[in-house]
């Protein structure tokens, strides 16, 4: 990790709990009588996360489904608040968490670019000025003026990534987003991320270890809500692969009872 660059993300003892209720109505009791009795059990999605990310870092985040990767990213974006611990983030964050989540099926690609750009915090004039460049990056030609419902999954991903590539973020957060595009488009995205990394900071979640190896200079492995290992990508990936081979994909992982 570059050690003299300013810190952009700082997390100390970060923890996030979601309440798990016994039945659907329990939260009402919690809201009414919560100060006398607790009607829920906390599910700790994240526990005791310490993380320091400096400008120009690219952090690969590894972990199995439900280990807390997405929760961590959501906290960094400010979409959800941590329960305990401290976090601060500097600069503009562009989440590519769920590509195209804001897309409206009945609007055209063009209209969706306007909406998604505005949601990402771009000024209207900026979006319009960048429109041609976005269309070229997406490379979906005349479909730009078609309704989104006529798009294939790949085309949707292309459009979404093209928008994100034009947000001018300081911190880019990519969450398993690139797996949908075809090989040529994936390479285009990876090339773009490479050039982004020269100045920006990247948080990259992927189950494709090759991509993590290629893009990241630091890797964090999250297991069961905790950082199990972090450091140089090759080493962390090696122990991650080793562990995945050893540990069974058992059902018990998702139960809250042992927390």
């Amino acid at each position, binding site marked *: 990790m570059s050690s003299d660059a300013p810190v952009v993300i700082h997390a100390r003892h970060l923890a996030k709990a979601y309440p798990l209720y016994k039945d659907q109505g329990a939260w009402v009791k919690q809201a009414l009588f919560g100060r006398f009795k607790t009607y829920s059990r906390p599910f700790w999605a994240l526990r005791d996360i310490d993380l320091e990310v400096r400008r120009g870092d690219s952090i690969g985040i590894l972990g199995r489904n439900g280990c807390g990767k997405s929760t961590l990213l959501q*906290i960094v*974006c400010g*979409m*959800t608040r941590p*329960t305990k611990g401290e*976090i601060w983030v*500097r600069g*503009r964050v562009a989440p590519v968490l769920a590509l195209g989540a804001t897309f409206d099926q009945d609007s055209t690609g063009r209209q969706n670019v306007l909406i998604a750009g505005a949601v990402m915090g771009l000024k209207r004039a900026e979006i319009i000025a960048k429109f041609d460049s976005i269309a070229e990056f997406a490379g979906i030609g005349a479909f730009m003026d078609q309704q989104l419902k006529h798009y294939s999954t790949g085309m949707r991903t292309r459009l979404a990534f093209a928008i994100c*590539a034009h947000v*001018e973020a300081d911190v880019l957060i990519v969450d398993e987003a690139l797996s949908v595009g075809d090989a040529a488009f994936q390479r285009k995205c990876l090339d773009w991320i490479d050039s982004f990394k020269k100045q920006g900071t990247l948080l990259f979640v992927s189950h494709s270890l090759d991509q993590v190896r290629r893009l990241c200079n630091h890797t964090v492995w999250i297991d069961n809500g905790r950082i199990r290992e972090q450091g140089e990508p090759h080493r962390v990936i090696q122990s991650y692969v080793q562990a995945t081979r050893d540990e069974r994909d058992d059902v018990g992982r998702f139960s809250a009872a042992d927390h």
Partner: protein
Amino acid sequence: MIEGPEQRTGHSDALLLHVIDGESVIDGKLGAWAIFIRFLRAPFVSAYRHRDLIRVILKRELDERFKGSQAGWVWALTAPLLALMTYTFAFGGSAVLPNKTAAKSAYDYSLFVFGGLIAFNFFAEMAYRAPSLLQEYAHFIKQTLFPAEMLAVISTLRASAYAGIGLVLMLAAQLAFTGSLSWTVVLLPLWVISFMAFLIGLTWFLSALGAFTRDVSYLMMTIAPLLLFATPVFFSQEVLPPPMDVLIYANVLTGFVEIVRDLVFFGRLPGLAVTAWTFFISLAMFWFGYWFFNQNRANIADVL
């Protein structure tokens, strides 16, 4: 060509978020007074910051209303026009106004009712929609940095477009039937603004509650139609016996209905007490709603 990140102008060093133990401390330590001022300004600061987003989502909402229809916005005009014609036929015969003043023409009662219905429908549209508003936009709120508090503003703006059509139609009908318009109609924008403030506050409150339970939706579906008859839409507050003629102002819609009628139909200034009460209600609802929404904001994304 592809615009690469190397063309960027520079980094922003602004602190995006700073949270300690679940509490946002990004504002640092502020005095009670500064916190209060900041709170009063917050909805306006947010609306200004997100003005481009408001614009694009509002356009989407307006387009959506008549999506797939050929006539489109003609429907927005047709509905109130048909309503006005129906009232004229239905009530035209009963040429005595409910407040016992003699009607000047057969159209009077229909104009009287129409004015009340514009106000009531403005309210009803928000009352029906607000509880499920955040669910409608759940994918935005959960997965992007979407300013959820602006949804109340956007949806109220959309509703006010229809209320505006109704108002214009009412002014036209008033002019056509009576041949003149009172100067008091120039005060209508004030009425619209204070009604919007009330409805935005109401929407903040109902939508935050509605994020936690669908019951709010069913509750509003149950009580909104009843409120139509608990509000002086088809009658006038003046015909009620005491103490009901004062108690009916506990239904906060009464003031809004009476004022729009005074301004357009009767062509007189509304009473001072009614005006003061109504303005107070709308400001109180606005900031209470915003406070309530803000209190629950951290939980909303988690429960949606």
